[in-house]
């Protein structure tokens, strides 16, 4: 039941996270999740989405890139490898 590879957008503020979720949910299947422990960030909410949605998501959030960070997550067993992506 656990996705092997996915992206998360981590936010500086809960309100940004909530607003972005609302915006993305209208168009795409995304999930709001607690920010994975492997990522240190000031706000505990992230948006998780499948690798195939990257371009669509980034197109929709391109106005607000200053408020978020993008990470690619790859699971190996119970370990999560986190790769920061430049946006």
């Amino acid at each position: 039941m656990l996705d092997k590879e996915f992206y998360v957008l981590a936010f500086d503020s809960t309100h940004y996270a909530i607003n972005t979720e609302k915006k993305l949910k209208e168009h795409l299947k995304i999930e709001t999740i607690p920010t994975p422990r492997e990522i240190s960030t000031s706000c505990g909410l992230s948006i998780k989405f499948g690798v195939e949605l990257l371009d669509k998501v980034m197109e929709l959030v391109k106005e607000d890139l200053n408020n978020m960070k993008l990470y690619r997550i790859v699971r190996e067993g119970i370990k999560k490898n986190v790769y920061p992506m430049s946006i």
Partner: protein
Amino acid sequence: MNQEIDARGLQCPKPVIETKKILDKLQDGSIVTIVDNEVAMKNVSKLAQSMAYDVDVKQIESDYHINIYKGSMEPMVNMSKNTNGETVILIGDETLGQGAEELGKILMKGYIYTITEYDPYPKSILFINSGVKLTIEGSEVIDYLRGLEKEGVEILSCGTCLDYYKIKDKLAVGGVTNMYTIVDTLHSAKNKVTL
């Protein structure tokens, strides 16, 4: 010696209570409990299995005849279905914590998502009061709960509560339960988490 319990027309959880009374005293032989609805049939079957009895159900017209007998079954605690953790979670609200409802919903969603990532999985998750809104069609956590159920986590929603909110026909994951099973599940659990 075979005993028969006619529990037709009895309100839940009566059929379960009556069956348990007899099973607690049963030395040998088998019993048959007759009920007139599927929820009672499932609950009585589940009770019998949890007490390590074998169960056969025959549908005769609109009634269910539940034949309960001592087979070669090991108690359920040894069954693979219960290789999960020893924790039982009671969720009594569709939101988590006190405060803004929007935030409460997000926190509850986050909590249930995190359970899917946390090892070991809980043994059971019980939903009561507005918590049952999390187990119906359209709930944002339905996929997580279905995934947990596939992994052997028992997901149970309170029937009285589904009924009260008029969403009984919308249940989308797990089974319907009653206070008798809820108390039994909670009180026999090694660890309890109440939200």
